[in-house]
């Protein structure tokens, strides 16, 4: 459905040091550097997938989204989305896609949300019947009914984001690109947005590509992740694969009746220790968690045990470190 091959894109960036002197110098002799935003990116995405596209700031996530949604023209490479090359047949391509840029707004600031929707209806040539049906569905699932008659400037960020997402789905696109859709949202709105993405993916078979820095988004939504750093794809696989590969440790925390006997179990390292609590990092390839707990219970009078997997955030940080990005 989406085929991307050897995509590359570089930007020319004007460079100068801070200060008046440097500003004057750059006026006469501007210095440019070329920044390679994307370098030989290739991937395929099938219908109905939700793909999390992750990477640190400046990795090239948004650039990729902008190229495959037909906004930017790449330096080289091929891309085929539902039979169109985005930057060559932009107008035909964009009919099939919906795009949300979390940091921008597509709604008209001064007028009620509904006016913007009506305009989009005409821009996308949506029939009256289709429009009503889609709008009804979106209003129900995103809880928009009270928002539609309000001017956009009076909406809160969470309300606006829900309206933005609805706006990019009015024309029933087959593919949805979400560039940081949950940025700046509170917990409730985040969950609402996530649930909605899941719903339309299941019910309407919308293919979703989403970039985010929120690993909870990824964990709840994406079966597949593509990790990009410095313009290159570093990892393309399922979340479980990633976890198995990097979640090599678990943390065991035990509360016990006061005891300060020394302890050492092979395959674990002590993270913290007090008279009533110990925290151990367990290397899973050396010792089982149950084994650690039974060894501890022999020595202490255990009150409470918690076992934590490493949060996905930490795994990502490790990944960034491993690839030096």
């Amino acid at each position, binding site marked *: 459905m989406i085929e991307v091959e050897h995509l590359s894109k570089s930007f020319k960036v004007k460079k100068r040091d801070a200060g008046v002197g440097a500003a004057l110098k750059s006026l006469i002799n501007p210095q440019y550097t070329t920044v390679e935003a994307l370098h030989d990116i290739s991937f395929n995405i099938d219908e109905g997938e939700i793909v999390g596209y992750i990477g640190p700031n400046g990795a090239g996530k948004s650039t990729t989204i902008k190229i495959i949604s*037909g906004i930017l023209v790449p330096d080289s490479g091929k891309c085929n989305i539902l039979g169109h090359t985005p930057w060559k047949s932009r107008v035909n391509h964009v009919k099939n896609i919906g795009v949300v840029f979390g940091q921008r707004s597509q709604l008209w600031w001064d007028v009620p949300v509904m*006016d913007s929707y009506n305009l989009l209806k*005409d*821009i996308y040539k949506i029939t009256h019947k289709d429009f009503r049906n889609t709008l009804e569905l979106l209003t129900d699932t995103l809880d928009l009914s009270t928002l539609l008659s309000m001017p956009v400037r009076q909406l809160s960020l969470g309300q606006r984001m829900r309206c933005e997402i609805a706006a990019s789905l009015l024309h029933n696109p087959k593919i949805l690109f979400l560039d940081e859709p949950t940025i700046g949202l509170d917990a409730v709105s985040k969950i609402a947005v996530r649930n909605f993405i899941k719903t339309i993916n299941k019910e309407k078979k919308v293919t979703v590509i989403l970039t985010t820095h929120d690993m909870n988004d990824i964990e709840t939504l994406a079966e597949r992740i593509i990790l990009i750093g410095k313009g290159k794809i570093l990892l393309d696989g399922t979340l479980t694969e990633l976890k198995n590969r990097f979640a090599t440790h678990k943390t065991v925390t035990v509360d016990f009746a006061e005891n300060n006997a020394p302890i050492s179990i092979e395959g674990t390292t002590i993270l913290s220790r007090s008279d009533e609590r110990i925290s151990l990092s367990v290397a899973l390839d050396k010792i089982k968690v149950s084994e650690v707990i039974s060894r501890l219970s022999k020595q202490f009078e255990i009150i409470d045990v918690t076992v934590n997997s490493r949060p996905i955030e930490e795994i990502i940080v490790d990944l960034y470190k491993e690839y030096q990005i």
Partner: protein
Amino acid sequence: MKAYVSLFKMRLLKGLQYRIAAFAGVSTQFFWGFMFIMIFEAFYSSTSNPQPISLTQLIQVVWLQQSFLVFIMLWFRDNELINLITSGNIAYELCRPTDLYRFWYAKLIAQRLSGALLRCFPIIIVATLLPKPYNFTLPPSFTAFILFLITLILGLTLIVTISMLIYISIFYTMSGTGSLLIFGVFGEFFSGLVIPVPLMPEILKKIVYLLPFRYTSDLPFRIYAGNIGLNEAIVSIGVQVVWILILLALGKLWMKKALRRVIVQGG
């Protein structure tokens, strides 16, 4: 086509929201109108030579200039379009299945029309009620009126075609100030909004007639005032159309080129 009509409607609604701004605009235009008329009256009373345009005709031109100000001023800008480019919100515009040139064209026409609709009628009505010789009168003939309407609409088309070039240039300069200022000052002078074209020296007149600017305002207004006859008017309509076609082609070509190198600002 429906999209453009609907966009137009949206723009019109937005423009109509700002009633106070329109009222302030109307008052300002009266101030300017009177000032121009007083200057020209002083000029006409100090000369005994016959001038290429009579004071009454000139007064008609002044009132038309003031009522259709947003039709004819190149500096009348659409900040929304400028912000789209400089802030990177153009990303959303490019996600729409529309031709960007036509889309913006519709926006700009709508913006000028909505501005003019609110302002022109109050000015015209009040100016008609003024005592002679300062009042606004009917055109010399019905034909002149029809020609005025045709040239006015073509003039609006032409000015938007010119201003499209300003907006496209912002893709390169990232600021509208420079282009707007240069085009604004040049345009204003060469369309006879500072010194009326008939009062210009011969050599300057020749230059003015070679440029597109006077066909946006000087032409329709002088037709209304009866300073330009039927034959010249018909030839000038041809010139207007040619200019529109040339600048349209240029703008579309440039836009296509600009979009190939567009950079979405701000990540």
